[in-house]
Structures are given as C-alpha cells and as structure tokens.
C-alpha cells in the first residue's frame, strides 16, 4: 500500500513538472515583459534581476491602451449581449414553433451550415458591401458581423438545450392565456441561464481574441481593438521583444483575470457542446 502511495506522489510530481513545462511559454511572456534591454540580450532565460516597468509605460502609450481596451470592451459586450438575446429567441422559435415546421427546419439546417464555412468564403462580398454601405470601421458594422458569425454555433448549442427543457410549464402558461412572447421572456428565458452563461463565455472569448474580422473591417486607428493594437505595435517594434511582450501582457491580462476568477465555469463553458454532461 505504501509503495503505491509513493508511486502516486511521484506520478503527481511528474505531472506537475510536465504541466509547468507546458505552461512555461505563458510564464515567459510575463517574465520577458519586465526585463531590461540589457538583460534581454545577456540572460533572457533567467528570472529578471531588475523589473523594468518602463516597458509597460511605453507599450501602454504606444498601444493607446485605454482606447483599445475600451473598443474591445464595447465591441465584445455589445455583440455578446445583443447576440445572446436574439440567439435565444431564434433558437426557441426553431424548436417550439408548431406550424410551418419545414420552414423552421430549413432555417436550422442553414444555420448549421455556417459551422463549416471559413471566414474567407464571405470575405470579398462583405468587404464590398461594407465599403459601399459605409460600415467599414464602425462599431455597429463589426458587431453585426460578430452576431452573424456566432449564429451557427450558438443556434447549435441553444436548440440542443431547449430540447431538454420540459414543455409542460409553457403549456400551462399558454392555458392561462400567456402569449408566445410572454412565455418566452417570463418562463423560458430564466430557465436558459446555464446555456446563456455558456453562450456569453464562448462568444465573448472568441470576439475579444478575434483577429481576422478587425484586420479586415476595423483597421482604422480610432476603432482599434486591443488585439489589433498589438498587431500594429508588433509592426513597429519588431525587435524590441521586452516592450512587445509588455504589450502582449496588456492584451492578455484582462481575459486572463476573468479566466482565473471563473476558471471552472470558463472551462465548462468553452468545452460545452463538445461534451454532453
């Protein structure tokens, strides 16, 4: 028994070391970001001797951090919040509508097709459309893209969830004369809490971290998201790794803080749909 216990501890230590090794690139980003220019060249692997926080000050100013952070926050929250409400409504209608089933089934299949479409399959017409409608570099333009872009996966998740919600409550409410909208907002919506959390997490993480959409549709200086700010910053400071890494930390930290605060929910949320529990 004792031998088994010792073997268990040894295995645990091995796993801890392995995971730390795999986690090292994340630590590296943080360590690099506070190194002085000198140390960067002489001893990049060691723990920083002096913390050079000027890297951050510099990155902060060059990235116009507050503006970029505000843009990311605005775009992410508006697309996620509006998106979640209309995803839920649409998903509910697709599952529960009794008449014209064919119509709703067709919509469902169309939504699911979006799961396999690469972003490039819509790019060129959308660029033209956005240029001619003046939607380039606008918050509403990019938010609409995100809402449409998240539709496929969100509808997939939410219809799966609503199918598991018992219909009895809704029938009772209907007997009492509640309208379809009343039923949805007063009865069903509160029941959707778990799946709403999942949708918010998946969509918020995807939108916050997205690169392709802002690269194509929001590259102007004023509307830059934090990811675009990092991208522009890299273009200018190719070789000043310590300053660049400070920028990387600034771009990552907000999402990382949320992640470590809500770790279990985040992991469950992001792997939802993949794992049936």
């Amino acid at each position, binding site marked *: 028994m004792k031998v088994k216990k010792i073997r268990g501890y040894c295995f645990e230590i091995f796993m801890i070391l392995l995971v730390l090794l795999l986690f090292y690139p994340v630590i590296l980003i943080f360590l690099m970001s506070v190194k002085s220019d000198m140390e960067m060249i002489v001893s990049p692997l060691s723990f920083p001797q002096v913390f050079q926080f000027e890297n951050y000050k510099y990155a902060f100013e060059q990235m116009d951090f507050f503006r970029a952070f505000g843009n990311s926050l605005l775009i992410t929250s508006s697309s996620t919040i509006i998106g979640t409400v209309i995803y839920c409504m649409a998903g509910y*209608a697709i599952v529960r*509508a009794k*008449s014209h089933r064919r119509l709703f089934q067709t919509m469902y299949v169309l939504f699911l097709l979006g799961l396999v479409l*690469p972003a*490039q399959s819509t790019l*060129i017409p*959308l660029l033209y459309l956005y240029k001619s409608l003046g939607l380039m570099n606008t918050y509403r333009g990019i938010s609409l893209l995100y809402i449409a872009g998240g539709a496929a996966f969100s509808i997939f998740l939410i219809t799966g969830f609503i199918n598991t919600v018992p219909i009895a409550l809704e029938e009772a409410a209907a007997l009492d004369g509640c309208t379809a909208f009343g039923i949805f907002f007063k009865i069903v919506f509160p029941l959707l809490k778990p799946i709403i959390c999942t949708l918010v997490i998946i969509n918020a*993480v995807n939108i916050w971290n997205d690169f392709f959409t802002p690269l194509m549709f929001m590259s102007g200086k004023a509307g830059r998201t934090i990811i675009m700010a990092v991208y522009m910053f890299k273009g200018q400071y190719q070789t000043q790794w310590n300053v660049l890494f400070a920028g990387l930390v600034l771009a990552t930290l907000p999402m990382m803080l949320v992640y470590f605060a809500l770790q279990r929910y985040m992991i469950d949320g992001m792997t939802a749909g993949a794992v049936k529990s």
Partner: protein
Amino acid sequence: MNTAAKKKNSRFPGNIANGKLAPYLIMVLPLFTAYIVLTVLPTLTTVFFSFTDFDGMSITDFHFMGGKNYKVAAIDPSFWISLKNTVIYAVAVTLIQNFFGLLLAVGLCKKMKSANVLRTLLFTPAIISTIVISYAFTYIYDTNGLVNMILDFLHLGQFKKTWLGEPNLALVCVAISNIWRFLGYSAVIFIANMQSISADLTEAASIDGAGGFQRFRYITFPLLAPSVTINLTLSFIGCLKVFDTVYTMTNGGPGNHSEVVGTYILKLQGQNLNGYACAVAVILTLIIIGLNLITFPYLKKREDI
C-alpha cells in the same frame, strides 16, 4: 357540439401559442435576417464572383469568364502548394494534438490533489488570443530566441537556425505553436468524457487480470468515441481554416513554403484578383465540407459500438 369540441380542442395549448406562425417568425427573424445578409448571401455571391473577373472595386464592371478561374487554379502551382500545406498541416496537427491531448488526459484523470489546478493551467492557452501566442512563439523561434539559447546552453550551437526562415521547418514551427495552444483544450474534452465512464467497468477488467494498458485499450478507449469524434472534427475543421497563426508568424514565407489556402486567398485579394480569390475560397469551402462528409460518418459509427 362538434364546433364546441373543436373550440375546446383549439384551447389546447399546442394549438393556441405554438400553432401560431407570426410570433415565432418575429422571434427568429432578427437573427435569420442578419445571418442571411451577412453569411448566406455573401457565400452565394462568392460563388457567383468566382465565375467572373471582379476586381473588388466596381460592381458594374466585371465580366463572366465561365470556369476560367477554376482552370487557372488547377494549374496554379502556388495554389497547389498552399492546398498541400493546408491538408498536411490539418492532418498532422489534428493527429498529434489529440494523441498528446489524450495522454495528458489519462495522466490528469488519476486521483491527484493538484488535478484541478493542473487542468486550469493546461487550458489557459485556449483563452489567449492567437496573435499573442504567435508573437510569443515568434520570439521563441527567433535567431536570438529561446530555442537557440537552449541549444547554445546545451553546447549544440551547430543546430542553431532562424527557425521560421527555414523553408522546410517554417510550417512545422507554426504547427507546434498551434498544437501547444489547443493541447489543453483537447485534454479537457477527453477528461470530461473519461469522468463519465463508470469505474465499475475498469475495476471488473482489472479483477479479470487486465493490465493498465489493456484496460485502456479495450475498455476506456472505445468508450471515449464521442470525445474522439468531437475533438478530431473540431481540430480538423479549425486547421483547414487556419489563417491567424500563419499570417502573423510567417505570412506564408519563406517564399511560399508555409503558405496555406487561408493566407493565399488574402494575398490574391490584396492583388485585386478578387474573382480568382473567390474561386479559391469556394474550393476551400468545398474541401472542408467534403472531407467532413467523409470522416464524420465514420467517426460517428465508432460511437455506436
């Protein structure tokens, strides 16, 4: 009586609320309209443009060229290189990432005090932006970067390289960063599946004298079929769509040795060859759909054992 019964029947909830069309249509239309306008119609338009010489500037000034763009693609060596790279990249990353993801999941499924913390750490890269990870790895692979430092430290200086500048290694390096990023993600999905497998089964097998590996091979692994399906499908589709990592780490270089279809389309678009870019986008989309139509039923079948 008859009409009364009908009236009564129509008070049945299914017929009152759910039977109406209008409220449900109003609920679905905001999203459906946005989706049609911003996804479905653009996709169809891409197909339409792929038969023209559209330059991306003027909607009135383009000509039909029949299947010429597709004929060009068939003999365009740059396109074939990008396609070959994309498929090799997707197959290799999918298999390697899930193999190691599975190993890690097996390790993390053992009873350990630190299991939850380790799972959280392992999953972290999945919430970091691809751009941040690409730049971190660009440094790791740099001439003065981490890999070369370590080689120096180990007195293996002769193997030092500008890793992302090596024609044969650039895409491998990109692939490694991508595998690293989603390793934890795959592992977490496997873990969730493993935890749903009843311990009775493996215990029974070990009483019958099955060793650790045998238990895994004949009991656990077959029961992991659902997570295998989802992991392989997710990473395969994701890899075929690859853009961000390649674009920021090598942008297809050196030359076009690490070009993938995703980045190639953007280059064509940048050269105003929009019609041709659309044709390539259509081919990519068809390949993604086609490959998934082939693999998905096979993986699904494995689940029904």
